């Protein structure tokens, strides 16, 4: 059950030894290497083209977006869209709502998730495994299948059309419990045993021993949750009806229908909705990779 760490530059042993000594002597090796780079570059370019197009289009006038042949570099560079969008659309409200939801939900998910994971991995009691099975089982059930009863329930609680609905929907996910539990199981039992002998209560062990040791898992879960909430479209579509509680995704969609011919403005909105996530991803990509590797592959 060891946690799989996937350090981006694979350091040492992990990579299968296909750089044998025999290869190194031949010129074949160099050719292979050049070919590999060529393939990687082509693939990377193909993957990135939509993003490049998004950014360059946002720096054009709308009439210049669709030209034959394609104009890859905007000439002149038009920054006006980045000023106009704040007055033409309610961007600041959308961004504020999204940020608020992302932060609150991430905090609650990490807190309740790691707390529950401790119960599942470090405390032995009857019924625990059945309960955990219920958690894992729902990961396989598509949300689309139970969104209707969930909506009815939320309406009964009068949570629908409030930001609370989004919090209730996303803050108690099974995924967080699962991720934290996987990680806690790699923490040696001797540590909590020693703390128990020293007289710490279970809550104390969670707070002072296990939680401080699970920094990488907390980082993974925080980043993954934050990004999920930021990017969620269906939840807000169903629950957030009033424009003043819209999130950036709903806002962006409304921008598309309202200004459907102002391509450059739409691309500006898209860039602004992706930018915060891109920055977070660049800063913490190690934790994204680890989080996915830990939960993705069964130990």
């Amino acid at each position, binding site marked *: 059950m060891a946690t*799989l760490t*996937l350090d981006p*530059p694979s350091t040492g042993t992990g*990579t*299968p030894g*296909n750089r*044998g000594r025999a290869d190194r002597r031949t010129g074949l090796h160099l050719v292979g290497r050049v070919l590999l*780079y060529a393939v*990687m570059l082509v*693939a*990377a370019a193909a*993957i*990135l083209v*939509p993003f490049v*197009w998004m950014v360059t*289009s946002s720096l054009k006038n709308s009439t210049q*977006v*669709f030209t034959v*042949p*394609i104009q890859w570099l905007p000439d002149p560079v038009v920054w006006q869209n980045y000023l106009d969008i704040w007055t033409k659309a309610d961007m600041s409200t959308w961004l504020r709502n999204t940020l608020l939801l992302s932060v609150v939900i991430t905090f609650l998910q990490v807190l309740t*998730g790691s*707390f*529950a994971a401790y*119960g*599942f991995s470090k*405390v*032995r*009691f009857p019924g625990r495994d059945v*309960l955990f099975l219920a958690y894992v089982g729902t990961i*396989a*059930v*598509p949300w*689309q*299948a*139970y969104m*209707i*009863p969930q909506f009815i*329930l*939320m309406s009964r609680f009068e949570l629908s059309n409030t930001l609370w609905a989004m919090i209730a929907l996303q803050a*108690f*996910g099974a995924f967080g419990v699962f991720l934290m539990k996987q990680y806690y199981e790699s923490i040696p039992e001797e540590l909590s*045993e*020693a703390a128990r*002998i020293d007289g710490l209560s*279970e809550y104390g062990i969670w707070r002072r021993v296990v939680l401080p040791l699970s920094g990488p898992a907390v980082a993974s879960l925080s980043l993954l949750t934050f990004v999920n909430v930021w*990017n969620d*479209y*269906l939840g807000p579509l169903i629950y957030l009806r009033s424009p003043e509680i819209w999130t950036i*995704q709903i806002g*962006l*969609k409304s921008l*598309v229908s309202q200004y459907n011919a102002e391509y450059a403005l739409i691309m500006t909105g898209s860039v602004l909705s992706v930018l915060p996530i891109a920055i977070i*991803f*660049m800063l913490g*990509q190690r934790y994204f990779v680890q989080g*996915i*590797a830990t939960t*993705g*592959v*069964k130990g």
Partner: protein
Amino acid sequence: MSATTIERPRAPGRRLRRRRALVGWTFILPNFLGFATFTLVPVLILMYLGFTSWNAFGAAEFTGLENYERLLSDSTFHTALLNTLYYAVFHIPLTLVAALGLAVLLNQKLRGVAFFRTVAFFPYITSIVAIAVVWNMLFSPEAGPVNQFLEAIGIASPPGWTTSTDWAMPAIILVSIWRDMGYYMLLFLAGLQAIPGELYEAARIDGANAWQRFRNVTMPGLRPTTFFVTVMLTIGSFKVFDLILVMTNGGPGTATLVLSQYIYDTGFVERDFGYASTVAIVLFLICIGVTVLQFLVNKRRER
């Protein structure tokens, strides 16, 4: 446990057991309350709603199997089911192959590999709305970059993509492969790194070439990962929704209408909660059924 046996009674007494259960539950409860209310209970209600007629006003009325009979003669449902299968049949294998290819490529010890991994994963973490909007523009029939490229390489009349009933679904499949492959690539990379390097050395000494090593070392070593990826991809394919909702809204006509959108339209637009739940149960059963099937097949192959 050996360290504590000195101070504690040998077998945990009933009081201790009860205490432990209490402690365990207090850890789980904060999360469980929210999880049970907003996930577990809705799943259970779903099972009942599927047998009712309920249009959001008044109470649900039990109608037995009537909804299921209606499914049999509902041609829109059949279209949605077929479109979902169409999507799944192409999306699952193509994403699997693309992700595995990327993983093998990016598992090499080369300078800059980390950068390429980041690039490949990036589409997966960007918002569906933004990428759907961008791709819609890229696929634009007249002056869109995709068709300009196709014309440049000699295809005289490139397809109309999202505006054409025949090409809307392929367009969506292409975008979803582009978006998903980075995620599954990460899973495969984790799997690849778990294969011991000695196995490759041994195969090399036995004179196996690159393809033989891939076929006889990599593939068997990746089997647990491949299984997991297939299950995830299958569930993901059958519940596909938001990308289609933003890119084509199910159109043109019903060319890209899938099960999830049919549930959404019936439930939230027409307010027919009962019938929408019946369709939702079908989706649920497909996902569970496919998962169990794959599990059984995998078990048998392992023997």
